[in-house]
């Protein structure tokens, strides 16, 4: 069943055509990642799905609801979604637990406050004023506020920007746990390794259009692309692209009679494929 259905979505700002006909279908229970360079139409698309922006053309259904409607129906809809924005802060005069407990009061079926604090790893900081949190801790608070309402659908916008590697790993396992609880997640990220680790499917958007939707492993024909085998031969490093790396390695092994010096077999990373798809431009 599709939780999100987008057909022919268009949005312009004056002469700038930010989104030029996007189709998307996101299924229940999956982590779907939207990838694209800055200015590709990523944020506009997500903000339309979140009900923050209106569209010019096309149809959008999120949990069976049109996000740009207003009124009581829209409150009931917001009760079922969670949003973690790219940057949000506040004066920070409340404690972590005060803030989360307050937000839990907005929802009909909130999660347990203590449990949420624990799941984002802020138990130690529950009584601390928000102004005294580090950047990464604030980000985890943002996530806590996004999931306190026990959402069926969670929007995550660049969730791990500014995290150290350890915090990112901890965050990833939190997201995976949410999925295993049945939460559908739409993730936008700049980090390709993050998309690869988390996403069931990824979509690449550029110039306001979706270029491809696929699993991270299959994107851009990655699974069937040629492998690169490299090794050291005397002074020189040699490398060869091949469809049959195993055969090549076997031949090399025979010619070196055993270990091949500095042997590496690689396939293009998600990042390589992605950069090729968006035309090699990286910001």
């Amino acid at each position, binding site marked *: 069943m599709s939780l999100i259905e987008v057909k022919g979505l268009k949005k312009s700002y004056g002469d700038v055509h930010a989104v030029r006909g996007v189709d998307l279908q996101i299924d229940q229970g999956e982590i779907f990642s939207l990838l694209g360079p800055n200015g590709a139409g990523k944020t506009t698309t997500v903000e339309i799905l979140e009900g923050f922006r209106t569209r010019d053309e096309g149809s959008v259904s999120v949990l069976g609801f049109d996000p740009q409607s207003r009124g009581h129906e829209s409150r009931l809809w*917001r009760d079922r*979604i969670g949003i973690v924005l790219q940057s949000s802060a506040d004066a920070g*005069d*409340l404690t972590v637990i*005060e803030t989360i407990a*307050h937000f839990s009061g*907005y*929802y009909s079926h909130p999660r347990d406050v203590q449990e949420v604090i624990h799941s984002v790893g802020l138990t130690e900081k529950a009584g601390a*004023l928000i102004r005294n949190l580090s950047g990464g801790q604030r980000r985890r608070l943002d996530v806590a506020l996004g999931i306190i309402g026990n959402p069926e659908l969670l929007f995550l916008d660049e969730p791990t920007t500014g995290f150290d590697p350890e915090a990112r790993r901890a965050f990833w396992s939190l997201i995976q746990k949410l999925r295993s609880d049945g939460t559908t997640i739409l993730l936008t990220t700049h980090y390709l390794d993050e998309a690869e680790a988390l996403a069931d499917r990824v979509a690449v958007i550029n110039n306001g259009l979706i270029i491809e939707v696929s699993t991270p492993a299959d994107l851009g024909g990655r699974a069937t692309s040629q492998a690169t085998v490299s090794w050291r031969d005397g002074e020189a490093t040699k490398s060869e692209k091949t469809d049959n790396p195993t055969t090549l390695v076997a031949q090399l092994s025979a010619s070196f009679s055993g270990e091949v010096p500095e042997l590496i077999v690689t396939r293009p990373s998600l990042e390589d494929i992605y950069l090729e798809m968006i035309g090699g431009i990286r910001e």
Partner: protein
Amino acid sequence: MNKIPSAVSLGIRRGGLEIRQFSRQRESVVFTILFPVILLAIFGSVFKDTIAPGVTFSQYFVAGMIASGLVNTGFQALAITIPLERDFGALKRLRGTPMPASSYFIGKAILIFASMLIQILLLLGFGVLFFGLEIPTDLAKWVTFTWLVILGSTCSTALGIAFSIVPKSGRGASAVVSPIVIILQFFSGVFFVFTQLPAWMQQIAAIFPLKWLTQGMRAVFLPDTFAAEEVAGQWELGKTFVILLVWLVIGIFFSVRKFKWDRD
């Protein structure tokens, strides 16, 4: 069917949270609540003249300060702090939750009303102790006072929320809002006796709520004989009520229709 909390109950919860948040911001507490008291201390000590039989300027000034406190704590504070909240992204985050806009507005109204009450108590205390202010004994005057504070505070809240859409950023908000408030105070007879101002100033002031609030507060705190000294020769309480109500409706209209949750 989902049962989500009502807008009013969420508004009350937000009011509690706003008060808690505000009470932890020492600078704003001092500035917003104590500033009128400091002004009173200065003006009350400098100008000791009697402006009419039995009425000193400091008594006149206390009435004006209570009225302008309604504008400072409500209109000015909100028109400056809401753009800041918007810059921080705090408003956008709220927009993404099922909390309705009306709850946010109710929360602000509760915060303003609470800080107004504290400020009024301080001003009255200082006025009585140091500047010869007489607390009215007539019940009718207290009735007038009550509706003036409630209507004035609500009106000021609504207009502050509505005006928060004008400043482009939180940083610039103070520069846009403060001059308006200060000019209104001069024009509306807070710092000077209203009837001594040029007629054109009086006419401009008569469009805005502050002039009517100050006049209303004088009706509460000055002897009834002073009514003859007013421009119309009377307190004009009925007219004051209607004008404040009209501004309240204007404020609510723009707050509901035009409120900006996001920077762009």
